[in-house]
């Protein structure tokens, strides 16, 4: 029956396969994007996820920041190395002796990308917009330092003239603060303080209308060193040099391509094959490889953030401060950063990262097993006897799980207590933490600005992100008072006292200070490491070699 030649069929299908696979390798460009970019001053950045939007008064994330900081410029800009406020749209400013009134002189040659001048009225409009309740801006509280801003945003004041923002002239802006706020100028570098172009906003909707089309690439008008050119969802955002920018002569990049690559393995492969100059992250398994084989390509820089565990202080036995301290002391933080997280993190013996605007905490939670055992015994659980089983909650992720397992083992080995690990999907976890329906829960906090306040005001009684149920009147008082002190040593002393209370009471267990680990091609110049991981693009350029 088999008269046909089945070898022929096999040959045919092989041919088919080869044709399919070989058909088009020729279509691939001969030169990779990085090399092309080096010649044309086009920077390719791996930017994590697709931005929610590019409206500075709506968004909340880091990928959004990375793009918006290219498109818009605030009153002040920041020094690329030190993050110190330097002139931006404002050429100069004066501060009243009591530190509550700031008068900004706007530069005459600051322009929007459509040629309109950037005026003090634009800033008034912008701050009115972000504070408008109906806009639903999630970062509006950043402006609460301005006099009456909070009341306007909460709707108790409806007259915006009572809010401490005034255009004294076309190019003079006066901002009156609630209290002297020493870190006020560095706040201005947060995108919630960036201006928007009033005619463009009003062309596409009301001043307080959310989600209008003004941020589309065909509509966007900005005042930053770059203009929005292309926005392909989940694919790429291209910004090009803005020729109307007041300092355009000093901008050396011609364009930046932001690639929203969510998967860090995909991103690493793209970097390896010359598609990216800079990545957003590095897969854990690749960190050691790069450190060993290509140390010039990997950067590990400290970052203004703390990884910690929250403790629900209402749940026995965790309502006993001795138990909380025992748990905190029994963690070998050196071991964790060396063997578990491996990304160059610093062990955290306090909550505020060291050298935050000149502040380093005096107090430490020591890693001291002997002391931990003693405290646990004093609390009524000698060698862990009779200690109820507690749960440690984290949001589902490989990294959090490994860390939780390591800590679970430390507590078992040294304190002889049993902890059950519980993981929940991100939003479920957020819900559980918010409702204080946990014993111990993993958390992370990234500072919004470089000042201890961004960390320490979190744990005031009923603070929006406290979530531990902890409350201490003395702590509250220190934080309340600090807002009114402008004398530097006195301020720092208040923070020291507050953090000492926090660490002694231990409603949280600091574990490590975050680092940012990323890959960067050696051709990228003018890119400096700093605490907030901000890299003003006007200083960045690409060398050909």
């Amino acid at each position, binding site marked *: 029956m088999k008269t046909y030649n089945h070898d022929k069929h096999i040959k045919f299908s092989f041919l088919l396969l080869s044709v399919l696979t070989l*058909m088009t390798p020729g279509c691939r460009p001969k030169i990779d994007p990085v090399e092309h970019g080096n010649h044309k001053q086009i920077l390719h950045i791996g930017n994590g996820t697709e931005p929610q939007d590019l409206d500075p008064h709506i968004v909340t994330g880091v990928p959004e920041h990375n793009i918006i900081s290219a498109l818009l410029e605030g009153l002040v800009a920041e020094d690329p190395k030190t993050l110190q406020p330097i002139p931006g749209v404002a050429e100069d400013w004066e501060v009243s002796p009591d530190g509550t009134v700031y008068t900004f002189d706007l530069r005459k040659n600051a322009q929007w990308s459509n040629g309109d001048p950037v005026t003090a009225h634009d800033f008034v409009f912008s701050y009115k917009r972000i504070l408008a309740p109906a806009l639903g801006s999630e970062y509006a509280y950043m402006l609460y330092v301005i006099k009456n801003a909070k009341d306007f945003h*909460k709707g108790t004041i409806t007259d915006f003239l009572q809010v401490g923002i005034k255009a004294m002239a076309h190019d003079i802006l006066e901002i009156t603060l609630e209290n002297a706020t020493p870190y006020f100028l560095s706040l201005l570098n947060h995108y919630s303080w960036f201006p928007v172009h009033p005619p463009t906003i009003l062309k596409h909707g009301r001043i307080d209308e959310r*989600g209008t089309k003004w941020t589309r690439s065909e509509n966007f008008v900005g005042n930053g060193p770059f203009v929005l050119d292309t926005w392909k969802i989940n694919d790429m955002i291209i910004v090009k040099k803005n020729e109307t920018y007041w300092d355009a002569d000093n901008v050396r990049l011609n364009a930046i391509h932001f690639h929203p690559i969510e998967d860090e393995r995909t991103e690493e492969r793209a970097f390896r094959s010359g*598609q990216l100059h800079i990545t957003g992250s590095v897969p854990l398994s690749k960190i050691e490889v790069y450190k060993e084989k290509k140390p010039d390509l990997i950067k590990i820089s400290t970052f203004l953030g703390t990884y910690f565990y929250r403790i629900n202080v209402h749940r026995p036995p965790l309502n006993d401060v001795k138990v909380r301290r025992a748990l905190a002391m029994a963690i070998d933080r050196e071991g964790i950063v060396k063997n578990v997280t491996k990304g160059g993190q610093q062990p955290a013996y306090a909550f505020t990262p060291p050298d935050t605007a000149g502040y380093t905490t005096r107090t430490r939670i020591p890693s001291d097993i002997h002391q931990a055992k003693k405290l646990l015994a004093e609390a009524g659980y000698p060698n862990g006897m009779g200690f109820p089983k507690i749960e440690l909650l984290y949001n589902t992720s490989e990294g959090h799980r490994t860390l939780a397992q390591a800590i679970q083992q430390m507590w078992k080995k040294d304190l002889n207590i049993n902890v059950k690990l519980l993981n929940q999907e991100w939003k479920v976890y957020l819900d559980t933490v918010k409702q204080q329906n946990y014993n111990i829960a993993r958390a992370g906090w990234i500072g919004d600005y470089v000042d201890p306040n961004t960390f320490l005001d979190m744990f005031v009684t009923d603070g929006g992100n406290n979530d531990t149920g902890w409350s201490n009147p003395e702590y509250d008082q220190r934080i309340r008072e600090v807002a009114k002190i402008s004398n530097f040593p006195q301020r720092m002393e208040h923070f020291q006292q507050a953090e000492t209370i926090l660490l002694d009471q231990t409603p949280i267990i600091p574990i490590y200070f975050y680092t940012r680990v990323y890959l960067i091609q050696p051709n990228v110049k003018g890119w400096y490491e700093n605490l907030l991981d901000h890299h003003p693009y006007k200083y960045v350029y690409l060398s050909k070699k």
Partner: protein
Amino acid sequence: MTTFILKRIFFETLPTLLIIATLTFFMVRLAPGGPFSQEKSVTPEILENLKAHYGLNAPLHKQYFDYMKNLLRGDLGPSFKYPNRTVNELIANAFPVSFELGLYALLFALLVGNAAGLIAALCPNTKSDYIPMSLAMLGICIPSFVLGPLLVLIFSLWLGWFSVSGWDFPSDRILPAITLGATYAAYIARLTRSGMLEILNQDFIRTARAKGLPEYKIILKHGFKGGVIPVVSFLGPAVAGLISGSFVVETIFQIPGLGRFFVNAAFNRDYTMVLGTVLFFAILIILFNLVVDIILVWLNPKLRFRE
């Protein structure tokens, strides 16, 4: 035939869609957390403002009827995660990409799967049966998150033939299409083999042989048409799955398709986006099942007589 189609649409499709929309609407609301919960929590006032903007502070039944009203007009609402986009726009933007990728994957799956299945069926229990069938088994077993990076490693990083990721050049379609199509190719190979084996033992094939028809005609014209029926039934839901995007393949290759929205919308509690993608997928499945039923009637004369 027209009454058959109309009946299907009015008595099956529309009620099914209504049930799916209702169930999804309430299920997604039951999930803990909401579209606005995040690590840095928003103040109660801001949360109220946001809810007011999206109409989330109305009673749930009112929200449901409002949603249904808009749905009738084809309006899937604004996305919660991407405030300046509508769900319609996001789907319209991503679907063509997924559709294109799906078509290439389907083409690959059909060519490779049918060829392998045919070869195997022609010489059952020989080397040319075992080899393609073992490969097919492998294709079913290897998940795409292994196959994808493996192909990238070999063809992009070592040989340098393709980009490792992206969707910019025609050649960017090849590796994702193979990764996505591999599993389907394997299924099709096995289905083709069993379908062909059954047909080739039928009387009418023996008759054709006795009449002295050339072998290729017997196999391709008489055999294949019947042997491919199981494949066609499989293709209905398979095509809907292929062209609506795959989370894994799109993530590995950084493709701006629809697949990632399915998963991320649920993670983000982007209520309208979850509903939009679920409904869209449901419509695709129903549509392709309908098409398959029509093709089956055409392929199989027995079904036509029943009509």
